[in-house]
């Protein structure tokens, strides 16, 4: 990964994404410019269905945008972005492989010998707190444990940038907090560039250096970009009590609220909730 050190880690310029064609054309994302600097942790928040995840897929090379260009570490994205690690929302582990094999395979496909790959995978499983779980199959692990295996699987390749698509979305609140802390402590060690998609504003503020707000779809775009000046290293439970956290939360929620309302528009109006759904 001979990345250009001065170039942005991720750079999207004028990216638009459409699905279908003709009358059934759906414009998911319209004209997004977004830059993630090396070592920067950027969170994207927005109402459901605003196309947050499709932006990640563009950066990953899993999806070709209908307009605009994507660059990773100064190189144009063409095909799968080798320099990127991707953490999916849904279960992405191979169910027929043990936790150890799932992590080791990420090195094996890159040509690392079996014995060495296993040894390093064991070390990574220990780092995510899964020592002693290496021979378990995914169905024998809890949701949080599976996510930690996936995290080790992504990080063992030492990717230059990390793309995360609501990775902790399916987990319960306590597990989410623990996973957030684990992610922060791993990230603190080598500070890779992160693009983290979530619908949870608290999670975004607690984790990121910058929170980008997207408008409701269709044709969603970036409507706000907030710098999170909370001190690091952070502990999620503590940082949530910080007065600055609350100031940021209400500032960003002002931008986000209108879009959430727009996304649910008629449904909320029908329930008579349109006016009173002010503070979170």
């Amino acid at each position: 990964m001979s990345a250009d050190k001065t170039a942005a880690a991720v750079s999207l310029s004028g990216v638009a994404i459409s699905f279908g064609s003709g009358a059934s054309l759906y414009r998911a994302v319209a004209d997004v410019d977004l830059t993630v600097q090396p070592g920067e942790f950027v969170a994207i928040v927005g109402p459901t269905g605003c196309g947050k995840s499709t932006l990640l897929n563009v950066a990953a090379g899993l999806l070709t945008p209908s307009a605009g260009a994507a660059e990773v570490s100064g190189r144009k994205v063409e095909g799968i972005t080798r320099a990127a690690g991707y953490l999916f929302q849904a279960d992405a582990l191979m169910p027929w492989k043990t936790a150890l094999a799932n992590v080791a395979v990420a090195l094996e496909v890159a040509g690392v010998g079996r014995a060495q790959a296993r040894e390093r995978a064991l070390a990574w499983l220990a780092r995510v707190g899964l020592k002693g779980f290496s021979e378990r199959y995914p169905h024998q692990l809890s949701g949080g444990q599976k996510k930690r295996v996936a995290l080790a699987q992504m990080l063992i390749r030492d990717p230059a940038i990390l793309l995360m698509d609501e990775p902790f979305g399916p987990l319960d609140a306590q597990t989410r907090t623990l996973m957030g802390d684990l992610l922060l402590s791993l990230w603190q060690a080598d500070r890779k560039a992160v693009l983290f998609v979530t619908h949870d504003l608290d999670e975004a503020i607690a984790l990121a250096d910058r929170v980008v707000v997207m408008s409701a779809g269709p044709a969603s775009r970036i409507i706000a970009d907030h710098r999170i000046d909370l001190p690091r290293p952070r502990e999620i439970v503590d940082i949530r009590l910080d007065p600055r956290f609350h100031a940021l939360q209400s500032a960003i929620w002002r931008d986000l609220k209108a879009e959430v309302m727009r996304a649910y528009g008629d449904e909320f109006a029908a329930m008579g909730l349109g006016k009173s759904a002010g503070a979170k």
Partner: protein
Amino acid sequence: MKRTTLLAWQIGLAIAIIVVWHVLTTYPVISDVKQARFFFSTPVDVAVRVWRFFATGMIWRHLWITLLETLLAFGIGSIAGIVIGFWLARQPRVAAVLDPFVKMANALPRVVLAPIFMLWFGLDIWSKVALGVTLVFFIVFFNVYQGVKEVSPVILSNARMLGMNERQLFRHVYWPSALSWMFSSLHTSVGFALVGAVVGEYLGSAAGLGYLIHEAESTFDMTGVVAGMVVLSVVVVLIDWLVTLIEVRLLAWRPEATAHGA
């Protein structure tokens, strides 16, 4: 129900059936004893016949032939099903063209093919193997095809993001997925391989369990027919048990495999 209670009930039922069979063919309860014995034989006669099968050793040759045909049908049918299933799953255009033909071939009752296979392959084992292959092939083919098609798109995207090329995707994703589908139908396909062998033997052959039963039937030797059926069903149960053992080992990663394993 507890395991031991269940077993007790099962053995009890078997004994009850044998007792009823014995009483009805030994005492003139509903019909003349001689007539009842002609139609149903008796448990004692059948047991003696089965014992004689093994005591004289004549059964081994027939058992071996039937098992060999079953094994060959299963092996050839599985390999063909895997190769063609994979190929069609990766070639959607070819699959679309072949679709009606595959459905037609699969809808055909296989018994009608038996005489054709006898003509083509003769009366020895290969005509029976061919019949079994036509049964096994479609089960394996459909499962492998499904297994490749139904790979979760997230697992596939993740594997791509981990840097896998096409060959590595095949080895780490498509192949295990297809195999798991194939193994889930192992009971059915092994069973059908045996059906192909026995039906083929029944329709024309000089050896095998199907031949044995057919021979007994043509001389109205009901004891021979039932004895042949008993041996055949014990073989089926043994094979099924063996398949379960293999399945539990190979599909250890699947939650369902252990659930219906026992």
